[in-house]
């Protein structure tokens, strides 16, 4: 079923959003909030599709410590994310970059919208003759109308 849950259980992880652990927190609430915001976009590398905000794994704790230290040192979000990608590759970010390699990923859905809209426009503009009656059909309509008039 839910393999993430299974994996979590296998790792013996009691699923607690450990990021809120008071023992780890930064003293400045504004900085802490900024760190939490960054956590949500950083992947816990050993977990399945979990951010370090959610994960209780040791690596996630380490990553949280690194991010908190850098936030405390006054680094910006971009700088911290660059530091992480230099170290762990793009895999560490939960938001894929807007790069050529991800063109299809970001553009795909909007391509579907464009293609759909184009097809709809074509369908609307094509004046197919099925609105008109064929000669035989017109004849039949005339016949039926006559029958109706003279029962």
């Amino acid at each position, binding site marked *: *079923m*839910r*393999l*993430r*849950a*299974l*994996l*979590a*259980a296998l790792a*013996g992880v*009691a*699923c*607690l*959003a450990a990021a*809120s*652990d*008071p*023992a780890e927190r930064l003293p400045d609430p504004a900085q802490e909030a900024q760190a939490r915001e960054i956590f*949500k*976009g950083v*992947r816990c590398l050993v977990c*399945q*599709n*979990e*951010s370090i905000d*959610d994960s209780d794994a040791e690596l996630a704790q380490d990553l949280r410590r690194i991010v908190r230290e850098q936030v405390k040192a006054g680094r910006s979000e971009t700088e911290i994310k660059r530091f992480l990608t230099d170290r762990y*590759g*793009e*895999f*560490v*970010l*939960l*938001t*894929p*970059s807007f790069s050529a*390699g*991800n063109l*299809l*990923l*970001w553009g*795909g*859905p*909007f391509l*579907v*919208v464009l293609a*759909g*809209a184009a097809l*709809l426009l074509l*369908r*609307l503009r094509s*004046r*197919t003759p*099925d*609105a008109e009656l064929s000669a035989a059909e017109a004849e039949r309509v005339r016949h039926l109308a006559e029958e109706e008039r003279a029962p």
Partner: protein
Amino acid sequence: MIAEAGAFALMLALALSVVQVGLSAAGRARRSAALAGAGEGAALAAFLAVAVAFAALMHAFVVSDFSVANVAANSHSEKPLLYRVAGTWGSHEGSMLLWCLALTGFGAAIAGLGRTLPQGLRAVTVATQGLLGVVFLAYTVFASNPLARLASPPAEGRSLNPLLQDPALAVHPPFLYAGYVGLSVVFSLAVAALVEGRVDAAWSRWVRPWALAAWSMLTVGITLGAFWAYYELGWGGWWFWDPVENASFMPWLVAAALLHSAIVTEKRGALAGWTVFLALAAFSFSMLGAFLVRSGVLTSVHAFAVDPTRGVLLLMILGATAGLGFSLFAWRAPSLGRGGMFAPISRESALVMNNILLAAATATVLLGTLYPLIREAMTGEAISVGPPYFNLTFTPLMSAMLVLLPAGPLLAWKRGDARGVAQRLWVALLIAAASGLATIALVSPKKAFGALGVALGAWLIAGALAEIVERTRAFRAPAAETWRRLVGLPRGAWGMTLAHLGLGVFVLGAVFETTWKIEAAEALPVGGRLTVGAYELKLDDVHPVSGPNYEADEGRITVTRDGAFVCRVTPQRRLYTAGGQTTSEVGLCYRGTSHIYLVLGERREGGTYLVRAYWNPWASLIFAGPAIMALGGLVSLTDRRLRLGIGRRREERA
């Protein structure tokens, strides 16, 4: 003995399915009602045989027969009865058997209920359904036999993962599978329509109830899963854009699109090709989901490492069946009629817009799920696609659809009247704007996106009600006439209104909860206090309790507001003795539609406990919304126009 009988019944079901395909196909080729009838008999028999196998497996779980490998691996004699029963579908093998049970069950349903279908169409549908049965039963028998015995049975089983021992999750798979596999009927009907070369109103009328039933089941299944994740995983989230969730969400989106396009095909004869395409796609996505979940492709960093043979086999099944369906489509679809013309502003256009946006949303989920895999295979670079991606793509696409939604049902077929629709919706628009402004004024902290979301939810609800008002001429005609019209509304109309209303309720809940949830956490000694939002929590006491198969620490927490007692909550931290896993049992306190959500953490040095608390405003609406949508589906199913097996004549009389 019983397990062997079950294994034999499974083989028999496979043989019967082969017979079903042969007889039904021959019945169609020779136009023989007798052969086709025999094929339907085989379909019924195959279902009974799988039911016997399923009962045998369930029996093995209930009596804890650990000589059956599957039971030994997934059950435990101390487990409560409900979870022993649910264990039947808790493992890979068992869930495949459930899949086969549903597949043959739906085959039997077509055979039994399909009397009003044209003979040829019915025979091909039964044959196709039989073919699907053959493929999946063969897989189950040869690659994942759930009833295999162990040479040396263990004295005790390895037990089911404790996280999965939960009432919501026990019933979650049957609903989900009824939904997944219900779409196989639609697939078979589409194949039959392509073979027969005819897609008409009668065909669409047959597709709609099946799609509706499958979609409603999927809605219930997915919602149960989300609710389980919400209170069992213990961090208050309910949707993670996890590949496994996405796997169930894609068929749901496609089925929703199908429901809408089938209306156009039924009423106006248009979009026939597209409707057939969606009917094929819906079950293909179900199979893709089955493959993704079972192969381990997405859940493991080491792709294909979990069970490569099974993964490859399932991929082959997916490729062969979907490939066959779509090849047939490519070959025969051009011969399907185009149907009537329509103007840019018309019901047809609105439903096409709905389909375009749902298709794009499906593409988002598909790309988000598979793109990392494709990119890694092609370039070797690993990337992650997480919730932020879906927030940036899926959310705007769906928002666009929701903004347009209330106008759709008010537009006339062929040529709609934009000004007339605007006149009917201005009250709804005012309500939406007022809700947004009220949110800005009353809720702190002020968040523009949250307020917009609330306005959108209100727009959907008010729009759905505006449509009822319009249909019953409320406030314009005398009350008696309105009442008469209200009572006379077809069930299908109520169903639609409920589904759209439910969507609005969901949007309200989802937006409010995600925007304004409050989190607090503290290491508390017994007697310690913690504030979350307007509420104060006090950890009164922590004491040990024992369950049937676990030991737990239970915290007793009193919730007060301004000194007044609100509720007492007892979250637990459980240790399951069989497997040694710990789980947290969340404590929930309901305040209207909002929740106070409490989690008890482990005991720390100095005798403190990490207590986490969330204020989740309007969280109940997140689950109530989809429940209303599913209810809408069921109400719609009881509409006499859609009721299975009702012929044209009775409808005329009505």
